[in-house]
């Protein structure tokens, strides 16, 4: 098995070893060791929560450098719909798309367009009615990975359709290799990404062998390049193809609203997603047919690799949605594309929380864990480097931490050691013992403490 890949990493030089990230991580995947945060790789779902909360910007995502596009003869950018929300001063969507192309691409194809095709396909599945309720969107890879590690019983509920990004890349490669008569390997397709999770889904897809996308460039990396040519756009090209339905996918609720049924629920923010998935697991949301769940607050517009404030970006993108509505472009009606959109692989349960392979051993460890946890102060202060007292107890039974990592436990130990030393100090060898001296000394020390 290939080692587990994920794209969120740490910039050691910037990390101060504070506890902000360990507290927010939804899978308890970060510990502080030797004044630096350490990510437990197999636990990380690339939600990007730590990137967002780190006050020192020490968490980053591995994305591809812009120069990578030079490795391909024909270079295509496929921008996430959230890109449009980043440019307040842009006169139109075509301006942004043209400027993106001018940075060095031969062609630009909107992921928003592919999103509309996915919308149409999802609608079909919903009308046929043969699906486990509720169907859970697979558009956000961090949510799919969350389900893999924390909600295995919901794996069957995942919508097993390509993501709009994958479909966009597939379309681009197919169409251009035909029209230009070049092999698909000559075409480099680059996703302009708002988040780390998408990078992971390109480098290590869970639903198939290999992604159709060749690289991921973060919105924050390409932002200035686009901005600097945005004002120089002389001939605005007619690149936009997607209607408002596709553009709206950048918002939380965009995917589900497009399905034309009220039996949908849209949730955003990884911790909110967890609460909703728990309700689904307890079968408390039976009247919901489709769940749109996005790891970032505000949906992809709130992605950790975006530039513009999410609330501002929402206002900006509304302009493009309204404009597309006015023009009456509705991509969901289009039936020209005929691609296979069903996953060729499947996601599997990754039991990373398991304490031991052997049930009996796991039982013993769990019992010890409970016993240790009971003795810990329950403050969840994080000073030990683990996100909570229970997590520390878990680390101890896993053998990666000690009870004295807890500063309160350590203080207790130091105190009892000090008491022992005091006791020993009183026990002078009889030949040296000058009673009066010892007593005087002890009294003196006591006085000091009271003051």
């Amino acid at each position, binding site marked *: 098995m290939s080692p587990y890949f994920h794209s969120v990493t740490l910039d050691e030089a910037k990390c101060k070893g504070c506890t902000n990230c360990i507290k927010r991580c939804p899978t308890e995947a970060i510990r502080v060791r030797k004044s630096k945060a350490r990510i437990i790789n197999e636990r990380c779902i690339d939600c990007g929560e730590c990137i967002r909360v780190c006050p020192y910007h020490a968490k980053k995502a591995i994305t591809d450098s812009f120069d990578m596009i030079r490795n391909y003869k024909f270079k295509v950018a496929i921008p996430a719909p959230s890109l449009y929300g980043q440019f307040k001063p842009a006169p139109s969507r075509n301006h942004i798309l043209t400027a993106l192309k001018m940075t060095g691409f031969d062609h630009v194809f909107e992921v928003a367009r592919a999103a509309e095709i996915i919308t149409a396909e999802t609608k079909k599945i919903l009308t046929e009615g043969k699906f486990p309720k509720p169907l859970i969107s697979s558009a956000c890879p961090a949510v799919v990975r969350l389900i893999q590690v924390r909600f*295995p019983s919901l794996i069957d509920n995942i919508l097993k359709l390509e993501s709009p990004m994958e479909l966009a890349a597939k379309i681009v490669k197919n169409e251009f290799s035909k029209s230009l008569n070049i092999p698909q390997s000559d075409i480099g397709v680059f996703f302009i990404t708002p988040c780390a999770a998408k990078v992971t889904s390109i480098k290590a897809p869970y639903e198939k062998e290999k992604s159709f996308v060749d690289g991921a460039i973060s919105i924050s990396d390409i932002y200035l390049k686009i901005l600097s040519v945005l004002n120089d756009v002389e001939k605005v090209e007619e690149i936009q193809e997607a209607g408002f339905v596709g553009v709206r996918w950048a918002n939380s609720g965009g995917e589900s609203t497009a399905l034309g049924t009220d039996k949908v629920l849209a949730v955003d923010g990884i911790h909110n997603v967890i609460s909703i998935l*728990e309700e689904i697991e307890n079968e408390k949301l039976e009247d919901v047919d489709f769940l749109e769940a996005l790891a970032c607050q505000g949906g992809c517009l709130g992605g950790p690799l975006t530039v513009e404030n999410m609330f501002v970006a929402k206002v900006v993108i509304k302009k493009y949605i309204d404009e597309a509505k006015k023009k009456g472009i509705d991509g969901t009606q289009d039936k020209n594309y005929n691609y296979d959109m069903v996953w060729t692989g499947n996601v599997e349960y990754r039991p990373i929380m398991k304490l031991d392979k052997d049930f*009996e051993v*796991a039982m013993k460890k769990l019992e010890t864990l409970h016993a240790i946890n009971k003795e810990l102060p329950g403050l969840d202060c994080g000073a030990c480097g683990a996100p909570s007292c229970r997590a520390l107890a878990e680390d101890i039974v896993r053998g990666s931490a000690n009870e004295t990592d807890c500063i309160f436990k350590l203080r207790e130990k130091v105190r009892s050691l000090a008491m022992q030393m005091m006791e020993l100090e009183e026990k002078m060898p009889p030949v040296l013992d000058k009673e009066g001296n010892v007593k005087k000394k002890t009294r003196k020390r006591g006085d000091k403490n009271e003051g």
Partner: protein
Amino acid sequence: MTNGIIRQNFVIPADDFTAAGEASSSVKKMLIQLGVDPQKVKKTAISMYEAEINAVIHANGGIASVEIDRNKIFIRIEDHGPGIPDVELAMKEGYTTAPDAIREMGFGAGMGLPNMKRYADLLEIKTEVGKGTTVEITVYLS
């Protein structure tokens, strides 16, 4: 751990819908850490959750005790509530005695006992009107 059994007790608080479900949630966490099959975790979590909610809605809370061993998960939820006059009727889907206020909150749809029956491998209900109810849920692991 005595004789290969893990025992845990939980207090189910009265009239607290936000805290209801915490016991089944911690049991779920334990089972996942033990590496129990996800489908069995689900069966346990749902049936226990329903029993917990029932104790909150009808009986001013109660006590949940959980025993896990290699072969099974055994959950006993005990309350000193009003008891169930007609268990057979209560087992019917949609039959409910929950007050309107609770139904408006989305609880008390008359699915509690039917769901417990559906997901537990063994369900035993001992009840006496005026005294209380004890629900025993067993989910087999092997």
